[in-house]
């Protein structure tokens, strides 16, 4: 187990480095970061101006703009090569310094601290909704396998899995918030209860398709488990069916659901970015969209990194959890 753990930790470190480097390189190489900091000033040929050989005399030759450019270059280490810049940035990030937002000179870490809790709350609620729906749904479907309910639920889950989450979100918003006005149509930032209440619809938007996926996995595994000898034994002893289901069959049937938990978290995070947009939730999803529109790259990069790192770490933990549940995985 120790060797297995060590190997996994090395892999985790390698992936984290690769992921952060790819993200950083994409942000720095696909666009010109200098343009994003100083705008049109980036086109100034400051070396030529300093040497007095500038061809284009229309630009400001006084040197003050060039000072701005030089200051920006120094501040964001833009005069260094990308790998060096990456290391400097990585060092800063590890100490909790994500840089400064171009927009309002607020430190990015403060932005994250403000926006992350809303998104986290949404993700947790979405998982609660999906598991809360999937477990009873899967149990009933497996208990009455291939009967009317099961067939109907197969069709329903196929349909739910095909709905794009933004489509589901728009429809739920229209029906439940605008038409029947059961839920608030805009996010209400107040006490905890009203925040939870305004996150109900978004959580269902994210959680329903996920529940359909979990349900299909759980149903298949449960049907297999229900064929096991010890289940027949329990039934022969005369235990009530629901007691067999929840006390004997459910736990060993949860493997598949645990496995996809990590992957589904990635889907959920992606989905939450979109769903926050629809329901106006002030989380990191809205923040990243605003930041992209305003070319606020420190914020975009920080959010992308936080999300990607979280995803990698969750998958790592699920991997460990899985190998703990099923020791055969370790030898692979």
């Amino acid at each position, binding site marked *: 187990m120790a060797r297995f753990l060590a190997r996994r930790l090395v892999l985790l470190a*390698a*992936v984290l480095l*690769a*992921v952060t480097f*790819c*993200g950083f390189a*994409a*942000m720095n190489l*696909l*666009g010109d970061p200098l343009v994003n900091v100083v705008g049109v000033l980036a086109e100034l040929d400051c070396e030529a101006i300093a040497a007095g050989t500038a061809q284009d005399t229309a630009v400001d030759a006084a040197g003050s703009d060039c000072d701005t450019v030089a200051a920006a270059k120094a501040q964001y280490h833009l005069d260094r090569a990308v790998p060096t810049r990456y290391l400097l940035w990585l060092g800063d990030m590890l100490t909790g310094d994500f840089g400064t937002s171009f927009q309002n000179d607020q430190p990015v870490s403060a932005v994250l601290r403000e926006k992350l809790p809303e998104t986290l709350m949404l993700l947790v609620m979405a998982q609660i909704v999906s598991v809360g729906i999937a477990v009873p749904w899967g149990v009933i479907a497996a208990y009455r396998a*291939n009967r009317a309910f099961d067939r109907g639920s*197969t069709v329903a889950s*196929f*349909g739910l*899995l*095909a*709905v*794009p*989450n*933004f*489509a589901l979100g*728009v*429809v739920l*918003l*229209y029906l439940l918030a*605008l038409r029947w006005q059961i839920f608030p*149509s*805009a996010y209400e930032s107040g006490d905890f209860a009203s925040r939870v209440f305004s996150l109900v619809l978004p959580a269902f938007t994210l959680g329903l398709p996920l529940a359909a996926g979990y349900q*299909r*996995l759980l*149903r*298949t595994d449960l*049907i297999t488990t229900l064929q096991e000898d010890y289940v027949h034994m329990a039934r022969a002893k005369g235990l009530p069916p629901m007691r067999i289901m929840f006390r004997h069959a459910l736990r060993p049937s949860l*493997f*598949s659901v645990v*496995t*996809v938990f990590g*992957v589904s978290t*990635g*889907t959920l*995070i*992606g*989905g939450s*970015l*979109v769903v926050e*947009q*629809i329901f106006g939730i002030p989380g990191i999803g809205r923040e*990243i*969209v605003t930041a*992209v*529109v305003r070319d606020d*790259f420190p914020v*975009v990069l920080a959010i*992308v990194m936080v*999300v*990607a790192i979280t*995803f*990698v770490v969750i*998958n790592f933990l699920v991997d460990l959890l899985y190998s703990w549940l099923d020791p055969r995985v370790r030898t692979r």
Partner: protein
Amino acid sequence: MKHADSTGTAADAGSSLTGADNADGAHNADNAGSASAGSPTGAGSADSGGNADGVLRRRLGTGFWLAVGWLMVMALMALFAPLLPLADPTQVAFGGPREAPSADAWFGTDALGRNVFSRTMHGARISLAVGGFAIVFGMVIGGGLGILAGYFRGLLDQAVRFAFFVLLSFPALVLAILITATLERSLLVVSLTIGILAVAPVGLLARACTLVFAEREFVAAARVMGARHGRIILRELLPNVVIPMGALTLLGMALAVVAEGSLAFLGLSVAGEDSISWGKMIVDGAGLRDLQNAAHVTMFPVSVMFVTVLALNFAGDRIRQRFDVKELAF
């Protein structure tokens, strides 16, 4: 092709659900099984032509052909939208703002008085083009890398697998944001971005299949006869690996169409007023005031997109079952 399943979990969820199909008789299942596992060129022609066709139709079912029919209509719309007698989709004040559906504008008009029906039909162009292009890109790059990695093994395999692993370590939408945020968002860039998302899953499938087929006798025979690597890969392995990959094309397209819509919600779909996509239309009509007063502006594109994605999923799932390819975790 048991190895094609990367998670090893969802394996038979699909096939066990369709009990009705299994009732058709075991020999059909055997047919499909041997066709996908053995050499595909032989198995197809071994059955007499008419019989094979009948087997195909019985197994795929009416639903499959309904789905394909809808997809054909959408594809034709996308291809010929500019030639059809549709209103100009960009014409502002075709009717009054937010008019309900009428004989003139079947899907009503949006906030700027533009014809929603015409826009939906034109929107199919970008949505389907992005979907199609993305999956082709994923297959060419991912499939190519996967086959090479699976065939040559060793260091190349390690490197490719690590690259795929890193790609999969980003939540898909976040990776897409990363690429599109800094670039000009042309049709090509958006398609390429979504295509990159498909590279790793398709590549892992291609690699897994290649590993299986590279062990088979016909590859060994080709090698003994002195075939070069290039010939073995192109003539022996590729035709076998393309089948499971191709069986997942429609499922991949469904994901790509949805991905375009998600990007649109983040303001990162194809830029420009003139480029209409379903995603962008849904976003346009999803503001609270539009939704309150004229839900049709967004509900029509939502419905068309949903039916299209459903059709892609349904047809794709049937094809996947027919070729006995296990579900893939995208």
